[in-house]
């Protein structure tokens, strides 16, 4: 049987070599094709779910010739992808985390781009009685007092971090006081809305994803337009000195487009159901 063993072994090695060759070839070919003018942008699921990229990327391609490949994750994950050097640009909406990223030297500069706003979604029946309140802090305190069902994204995303900040602002120590009424699902905005819709619960969502969402059920916007609900987007080029494979020229071109007057106008023109979803503010020094 040893002759058979040896011949089998040789065949196995040849087979593995062939397999690696095929994989590498596919890789080389697809990379070569895309290596022309493409970048990887790590962004958030909320931004993707809002349809923003479906709208803007073809425009980007037209104006700059750059093919943008978006990896959509939670903010925390997106920044980690940048830290690993697996993305060229990070585009998220959690200023504190972005500044931290900057402080670590993972990027050299942060550019504000645009903002959208959060809205408090809840069931028409409104068990916590928050509809029409002007102050989000009151609404949240009421939800906690009434122990009304609330869905949290729980995924280190910008939305999640904004939610946590708002609880804090409302004087609620959510870690201590949360109970079965507070469900942390660890998923994206769309998933959170699905769960809220199915269980008639409150949820904090960005307006863009809400407007785009197709499964609203009995939910509606109950609280909006509080300045505390504004959601700022920042964009950063991953530091090419730390990660030499980053496509710094193309990445910077993409950033430059978004903050240019043309880009800012393109952003403002994105509308769903007649509603503008994103407000450009690259020129705002405080953004």
């Amino acid at each position, binding site marked *: *049987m040893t*002759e*058979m*063993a040896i*011949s*089998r*072994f040789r*065949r*196995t090695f040849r*087979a*593995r070599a*062939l*397999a690696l060759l*095929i*994989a*590498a070839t*596919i*890789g080389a070919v*697809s*990379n070569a094709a*895309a290596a022309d003018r493409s970048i*990887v942008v790590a962004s958030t*699921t909320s931004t*993707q*779910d809002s*349809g923003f*990229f*479906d709208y803007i*990327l073809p425009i980007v391609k037209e104006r700059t010739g750059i093919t943008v*490949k*978006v*990896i*959509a994750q939670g903010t925390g994950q997106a920044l980690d992808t940048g830290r*690993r*050097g*697996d993305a060229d640009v990070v585009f998220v909406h959690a200023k504190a985390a972005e500044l931290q990223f900057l402080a670590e030297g993972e990027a050299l500069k942060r550019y504000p781009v645009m903002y959208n706003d959060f809205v408090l979604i809840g069931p028409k029946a409104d068990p916590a009685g928050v509809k029409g309140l002007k102050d989000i802090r009151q609404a949240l305190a009421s939800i906690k007092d009434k122990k009304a069902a609330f869905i949290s994204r729980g995924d280190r995303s910008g939305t999640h971090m904004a939610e946590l900040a708002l609880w804090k602002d409302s004087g609620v120590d959510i870690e201590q006081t949360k109970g079965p009424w507070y469900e942390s699902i660890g*998923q*994206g*905005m*769309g*998933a959170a*809305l*699905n769960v809220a*819709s199915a269980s008639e619960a409150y949820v904090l969502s960005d307006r863009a*994803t809400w407007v*785009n*969402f*197709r*499964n*609203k059920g009995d939910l509606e916007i109950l609280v909006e337009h509080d300045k505390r609900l504004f959601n700022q987007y920042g964009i950063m080029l991953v530091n090419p000195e730390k*990660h030499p*494979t980053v496509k710094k020229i193309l990445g910077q071109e993409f950033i430059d487009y978004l903050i240019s007057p043309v880009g800012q106008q393109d952003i403002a023109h994105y509308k769903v159901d007649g509603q503008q979803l994103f407000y450009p503010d690259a020129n705002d020094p405080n953004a």
Partner: protein
Amino acid sequence: MPDHTSAFHLLLTGDPALFSIVGLSLAITLTAAVVASFIGMPLGALVALTRFRGRQFVIVVMNALMGLPPVIVGLAVYLSLSRSGPLGSWGLLFTPSAMVIAQTILVTPIIAALTRQTIEDLWLEYRDEFSAMHVGAFRRIATLLWDGRFSLVTALLAGFGRAAAEVGSIIIVGGNIEGFTRTMTTAIALETSKGNLSLAVGLGVILMGIVVLVSAFAWGVRRAGERFAG
């Protein structure tokens, strides 16, 4: 793809985005199944036909690996292919190649284990006759592979089915990038999270259709095998 059109409408009007998604799914899954066969079949035959220390252990491991959780494979491949990982210089993360690699890893144990079973069963049947007819080693292997071809094709189709159905690994290593690494399963995951449930369901039906077709084909192959070879 437009958000609120049903998948069937897109299918009928030949929406290019839908077709590219279906095409990519098939390309990745087929490639993975073929590569997995190149690796798994000789491996399975080798284990079936040779005696070595720890053989039973290897067989147990092979069978256990059939149930490898896709997300774990996805994570492992992701960490390996990441720029800060050992194979980062290949630059394969977030490309279809990474998805092929992940699915190949998932499918190879299935093909190897099923091949081993087929070849070993056939070997036990044929062994005496091989000895009696004084058949040489190479010839024996070739005969086992050829006479077992219907079962081996079934193994390949089983591997294909497994790859076609999974999403956990390819969504991690591929990134679900529109136009590049979005397949039927990852698109379903995305559209569900966007609340486009009717589109997600439609895509699901198309996917199920393909899986059912493959199963029917596998059944047909078995029947043909029984008819031709008895």
